[in-house]
């Protein structure tokens, strides 16, 4: 047997061994409920307290959608993989970058740090839900006008975060850049660049489009103020 043949045989047997080992591990490590769920056509338990997939109704962009998902599925994965709305991006998947920011009942959250099953009955808005009748949301339009991106990967999260941020500012919410004492009695504070940067600190742009993002938001805020 040549060296080449020998090594091919070794690879084959190693691959076969690995496949066997993985299958064996999966069979022993998976809880019965999940192993059952893996079989096509298997019935999942109806109880909520079950590790298997359950029927979850999510209201995304005004449309109610039923999906069968396991409790382990993040809101972000449900939006992207189950609802097919791939605008929301998975950047770090650990709550540090903000690329997955969506609005839940009008408040911005990181959809990677939330489980889909927690959001039945919530009103979820993603980047796809911001335009109306073919017209871009004013923040979307400003991002285009001010060239507030390079690669665009963080942009859906930046825009969703901005929409909530501007609403928060309009409601008179303070930030670390303006102390609560400074804001007492002020209903809608004018946002300085420092304010915008502080309030958008949960969204990272690796391309460094920050100056243009700030400019876009300054323009939108200036229009409404």
């Amino acid at each position, binding site marked *: 047997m040549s060296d080449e043949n020998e090594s091919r045989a070794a690879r084959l047997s190693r691959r076969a061994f690995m496949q066997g080992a993985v299958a064996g591990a999966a069979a022993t490590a998976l809880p019965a409920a999940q192993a059952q769920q893996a079989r096509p056509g298997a019935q999942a338990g109806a109880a909520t307290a*079950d590790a298997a997939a359950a029927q979850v109704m999510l209201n995304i962009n005004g449309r109610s959608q039923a999906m069968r998902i*396991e409790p382990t599925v993040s809101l972000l994965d449900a939006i992207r993989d189950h609802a097919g709305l791939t605008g929301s991006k998975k950047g770090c998947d*650990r709550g540090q970058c903000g690329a997955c920011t969506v609005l839940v009942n009008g408040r911005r959250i990181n959809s990677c740090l*939330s489980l889909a*099953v927690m959001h039945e009955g919530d009103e979820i808005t993603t980047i796809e839900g911001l335009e109306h009748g073919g017209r871009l949301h004013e923040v979307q339009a400003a991002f285009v006008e001010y060239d507030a991106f390079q690669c665009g990967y963080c942009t859906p999260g930046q825009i969703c975060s901005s929409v909530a941020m501007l609403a928060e500012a309009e409601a008179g919410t303070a930030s670390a850049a303006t102390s*609560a004492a400074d804001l007492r009695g002020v209903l809608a504070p004018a946002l300085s660049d420092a304010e915008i940067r502080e309030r958008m600190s*949960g969204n990272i742009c690796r391309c460094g489009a920050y100056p243009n993002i700030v400019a876009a938001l300054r323009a939108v805020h200036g229009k409404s103020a």
Partner: protein
Amino acid sequence: MKPAPFRYAAAQSLEHALALKAEAGEEARFLAGGQSLIPAMNFRLAQPAMLIDLNPLDDLDYITVDNGALRIGARTRYSRVEHCAEVARWQPLLAEVLPNIAHPQIRNRGTLCGNLSNADPASELPAVMLAAGARMHAHSAGGDRWIAAADFFINLFETALQPDEMLVEIELPALPARSGTCFIEVARRPGDYAMAGVAASLTLDANGRCGSASIALCNAGPTPMAAAAAAQLLIGGVLDAEAIAAAAAQAQEEVEPNGNVHCTADYQRHLAGVLTRRALTSAAARARQGTSA
């Protein structure tokens, strides 16, 4: 990233949540904001067999004020505490620390009680609870009890809560007149966990001397670290630069930093001294001005 499989139960009431927990014990974790628990599960650092979701419990989302004493419920999210005028008025230390907790998206979801139950010594909030003299209200299916903050944090990620108990609310005493507080930290980036941070609360007596003092540090040991001896040094004295420097030097002796990938233990100890001095200086000035923050 996917967590290990778990069963999920949405709590229908506090009683329901407590009954589920009594049955499942340590196998189950309560899920509030999930901003620490979900990443910990994704990294398989936590693998609870069951999550009991407290998010449906709207009645646990509250901030009440009774004679200046604040009570904050288990489902109250950071952003509500951060923007609550009553919190800023009665316990400015808590209002001051909150912008340091991660970013707005996280603060829209995470809860104060969830953070405290997680007992991460790197987090700012356990230290603030020590400095503010908070009390924790624990409930189980069998009853309830109050636990002083000083007795609540046992070790790294370990609290005095029993497996069947839940932290249902915290109470912060009203800050007396002639008080000043300050929180200050050094972090690599705003919103990160601090390399070290200090919470200080000072109250002057009628003669302008230090009537009471408390100092607590985050990321300075296995639990939030109270610098009790340092605080004791200040009591009865004038809060001048010399007294504050002595207390800061003492605080450095009381911390047990471990160092991490961003900083050595020596640097954390150095920060503990510098930040204690700055926090006490600000708190003393605020107490003298009669503006607590």
